[in-house]
């Protein structure tokens, strides 16, 4: 009887040891996999109209996209670089449009989408809810909407190669 208990105890210790070894590594690999998958979004992207290029970076755990290039960077009337003249906050209307974060606060989800973010339309000064879906490694579906996702509009963005030295 004592011997049988000893065998059970030994098996239990081995099983616990395996558990304590396996669980953390599983969690760590999940976290790393999630981070890597979310970072696929990083890079420079061009909307379908070709009038701007947007660089997506990560700040903390969320993703943000800045305008880094404009087809028409200057105001045709003044000749000066364009600013965010339609910003609803008047105090920010002189912020340069080039560099403006038009994509904000996207969170990577397990289903491979980036949600909870917003997209800003500098032409109207309006901000919309937005979902990003990567259809292949060089193509994004950017869906802006108000309220209901089904009533939104999708634009296709293409990845640009970064310049090399």
């Amino acid at each position, binding site marked *: 009887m004592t011997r049988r208990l000893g065998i059970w105890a030994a098996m239990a210790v081995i099983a616990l040891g395996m558990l304590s070894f396996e669980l953390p590594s599983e969690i760590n690999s999940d976290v790393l996999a999630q981070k890597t998958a979310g970072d696929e979004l990083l890079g420079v992207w061009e909307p379908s109209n070709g009038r701007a290029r947007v660089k997506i*970076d990560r*700040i*903390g*755990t*969320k993703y*943000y996209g*800045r*305008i*880094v*290039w404009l087809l028409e960077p200057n105001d045709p009337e003044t000749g000066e*670089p364009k*600013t965010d003249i339609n910003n609803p*906050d008047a*105090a*920010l209307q*002189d*912020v*340069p449009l*080039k*560099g403006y*974060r038009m994509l*904000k*606060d996207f*969170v990577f989800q397990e289903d491979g989408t980036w949600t*909870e973010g*917003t997209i800003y339309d500098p032409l109207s000064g309006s901000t919309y809810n937005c979902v990003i879906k990567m259809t292949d490694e060089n193509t994004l579906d950017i869906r802006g909407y108000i309220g209901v996702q089904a009533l939104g509009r999708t634009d296709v963005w293409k990845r640009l190669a970064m*310049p090399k*030295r």
Partner: protein
Amino acid sequence: MQHLRPQTWLPFVIFSLAFIGCSGPETVHEYKVENLEIVLAGPLFEGPNAGQFELTLDIPGALGDAYAPGMKVADARLQRAEVSAGDSLGFAQVRSFVLSFASDNEAVAMEEAAFVNPLPEGLERVALNVAPEAELGPHAAEEKLYVVLDVDLSEDFWDGDRLFLLNFELSLTLQSKR
């Protein structure tokens, strides 16, 4: 005149009293952050480049004796922000600065809070134009927040980093626990 029955108004009165009862008095405090090192990691390209700093506000430390356990941030506004050069390159080829605050919390959106555009020439230190409407309370209430400085450069910098020092002051409205 038609009178409302107690069943109609009593819940509202109870709710209002409970709300008032739970909310303590508010006090306003200045919170200064000095010489925050914002590094732009090279190579840097012509156009906007971002540097960030992960910041934890030490409100109990800043308030000292004025701090009471349970105080919560009810509101925060940027009062002043200033950038100075942190390396020998100074403000060379810098066209503008934009200062924003962000958080990992999904419910807290990034806020632009100050900028200077265009950057006047010949300066080594510049005060940013502050957007007084930018609500930074949700950011200040977080355990950590991200201070983001966007720097628009007029040409590429392939070798090395750029360093800028940021000073800013927040006006914090703190609510005491009753």
